[in-house]
């Protein structure tokens, strides 16, 4: 298994090196596509060919894979792969506007490397380093269009994100300190070491440590009220970067919260972790659902939708129990696919209409039918309309809420998801289907033929979110059950 993990991590590193040497020549893009596809294949092997659901170390205690890390690894590897394909079409054809083309590919691949490393690292310190690395490279990617707005977004992101991660590190240090009386003061804080010692850790230090970790890493997840960076960064970065931020980065940061939470609940019981997740998840869902209603910038709307979905996952895990937890982890995967589709569609729209303002976009279905269909299906997918996978995951979370007799939470989820549906669908419907003329657009640019690689990336994301809505393959089903068991505190 170690060999496959090393291959998975080495490929983006090699592509980043190759990209740094080759600059903005096409070979950088092709190298990246090959590396990302290879990493995705290697991730599938790591998770499914080595019975990851049992929880295994590899390369001594350097790596650790179990159901929890497997779910997140699959999600980030998929997003990295489709984003690389989409980026190749977006940049190599000259459709996308990225001023710092020279560094786009190296940064994207280092971003991919850090995201892939996050779920496979076996100890809390290295986990923190991996998440910190995602901040550094993705902040530069956010600014890569070079506009004043993207600089502002990148600045807010790096400042708020770094401050959050410093707080997250303090949380890790407190949890480490909680283990010193039983493990000595020079132990390596692997998850398994801490999980075994968990019943003997100091409960008040562990509680405080988790609160810091949740606030710190929660900043990167975009949980309210630490979300201020997210709408700006997601809306102002290049669209493939937005997809990577939304589908993979938020998930990777959430993984860090849950990995620490899995240890914490063995010390203090699951209710403490659940209550905190419920509070932050509920707040995120509440605020995002209503902010979605008032957006006219369609990329910003998708950003608020990401906050909403992270809120749904946190709420599902906070509800607890096997059904809701299964639904929450399933939601991580289908949200990754659904949101990449939505951002890819938004990127295609942006390249045609050259505006983020939905009021200036009309008649997409007539002028660019494929894009129109993809954009609309993306909107339906992320709002949880059947038969898309997000409908299934949300239904599972609601069912889990009822099975745990948490009727109010399940009801709140149903109401707020429907509020968000209204906000998202009415805006995308207006742009795609409603009659009317777009403002001052170049008709030739607007109705240009589809770029094949961008179309392939969109279709791949659509296929995943659609197929998973009607069929969950047996290995994935086992993985999701295993993940639900880990956060249930029964490693």
């Amino acid at each position: 298994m170690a060999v496959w993990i090393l291959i998975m991590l080495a490929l983006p590193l090699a592509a980043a090196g190759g990209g740094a040497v080759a600059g903005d020549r096409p070979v950088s893009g092709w190298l990246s596509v090959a590396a990302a596809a290879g990493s995705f294949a290697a991730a599938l092997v790591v998770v499914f060919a080595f019975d990851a659901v049992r929880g295994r170390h590899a390369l001594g205690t350097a790596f650790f894979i179990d159901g929890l890390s497997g779910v997140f690894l699959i999600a980030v590897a998929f997003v990295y792969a489709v984003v690389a394909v989409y980026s190749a079409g977006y940049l190599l054809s000259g459709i996308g506007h990225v001023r710092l083309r020279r560094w786009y590919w190296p940064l994207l691949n280092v971003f991919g490397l850090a995201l892939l490393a996050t779920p496979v690292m076996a100890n809390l310190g290295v986990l923190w380093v991996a998440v910190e690395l995602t901040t550094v490279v993705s902040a530069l990617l956010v600014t890569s269009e070079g506009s004043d707005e993207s600089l502002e977004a990148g600045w807010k992101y790096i400042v708020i994100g770094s401050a959050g991660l410093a707080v997250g590190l303090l949380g890790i240090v407190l949890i480490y300190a909680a283990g010193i009386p039983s493990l000595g003061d020079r132990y390596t804080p692997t998850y398994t070491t801490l999980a075994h010692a968990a019943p003997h850790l100091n409960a008040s230090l562990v509680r405080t440590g988790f609160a810091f970790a949740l606030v710190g890493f929660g900043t990167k997840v975009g949980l309210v009220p630490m979300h201020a960076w997210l709408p700006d960064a997601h809306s102002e970065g290049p669209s493939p970067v937005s997809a990577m931020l939304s589908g993979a980065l938020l998930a990777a940061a959430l993984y860090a919260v849950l990995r620490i939470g899995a240890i914490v609940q063995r010390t203090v019981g699951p209710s403490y972790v659940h209550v905190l997740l419920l509070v932050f998840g509920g707040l995120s869902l509440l605020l995002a659902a209503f902010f979605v209603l008032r957006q006219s910038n369609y990329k910003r709307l998708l950003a608020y939708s990401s906050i909403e979905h992270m809120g749904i996952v946190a709420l599902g895990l906070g509800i607890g129990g096997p059904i809701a937890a299964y639904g929450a982890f399933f939601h991580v995967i289908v949200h990754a696919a659904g949101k990449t589709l939505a951002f890819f569609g938004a990127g295609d729209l942006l390249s045609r209409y050259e505006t983020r303002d939905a009021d200036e976009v009309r008649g997409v279905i007539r002028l660019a039918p494929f894009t129109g269909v993809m954009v609309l299906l993306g909107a339906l997918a992320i709002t949880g309309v059947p038969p898309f996978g997000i409908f299934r995951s949300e239904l599972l979370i609601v069912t889990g809420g009822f099975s745990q007799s948490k009727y109010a939470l399940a009801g709140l989820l149903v109401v707020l998801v429907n509020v968000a549906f209204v906000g998202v669908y009415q805006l995308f419907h207006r742009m795609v289907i409603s009659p009317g003329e777009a403002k001052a657009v170049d008709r030739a640019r607007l109705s240009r033929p589809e770029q094949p690689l961008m179309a392939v990336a969109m279709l791949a994301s659509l296929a995943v979110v659609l197929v998973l809505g009607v069929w969950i393959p047996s290995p994935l089903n086992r993985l999701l059950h295993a993940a639900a068991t880990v956060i249930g505190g029964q490693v």
Partner: protein
Amino acid sequence: MPTAPHYDFVHATAALVAILALLSGLALLLVKQVHEQVRVYAVLSAFAAGYTLLVGIHRVDAALIVLAVWTALIKVILIPISIDRAVTRQVSEHEVPLFVQVPMSLLIGVTLTGLAYWSASALPIHGALLPTPALGMPLSLVLVGFFFMITRQNVISQIVGLLTLENGVFIATVAIAPGLPFAIGFLLLLDLLPAVVFYGVFARLIAARAKTTSIEDMAVLRG
């Protein structure tokens, strides 16, 4: 009959360094000039390095001594000089407009310090060479750093605030988990990575905004 705790020279010096570090953090709130803010940060970092050195000597831990030297090199010399040069060469204005005036800032800073000590006293934890509550001083720096970041409408001041906050986390790590085996590796990253990015974004920000580091105009993205 209870006896008074025994403090040797290293303990006494460490306690003094910790107090001076805390006072440096609070002194940051008094300073309007960007240059001076950077210098106060360098002084604070020197105390952080000094504290690490004392813990390293006390524990006879070569890794911590190396970390202290590395911290001094990066935080006391390299980062302040780099920021100072950037300020001198590229920015026309050197005084930061204050969102909260100095007396009120100081009052809030002292209140945050009290809050940090009060919160830390609830945690059952002993710090290497630090008087109880061990986390009081590091948490104070974290809160003061946050407050400084929020209330100074300037890119460089925000960097200084963030680095102050990070110094608080650094001292907390050395104090309560000095044996953390990967400490050197990830603390170096903690030091270097944000700095590298800050300069990249910062340089472009300056170029894009016609030689100003004020963030008062950075309010396009709202809602």
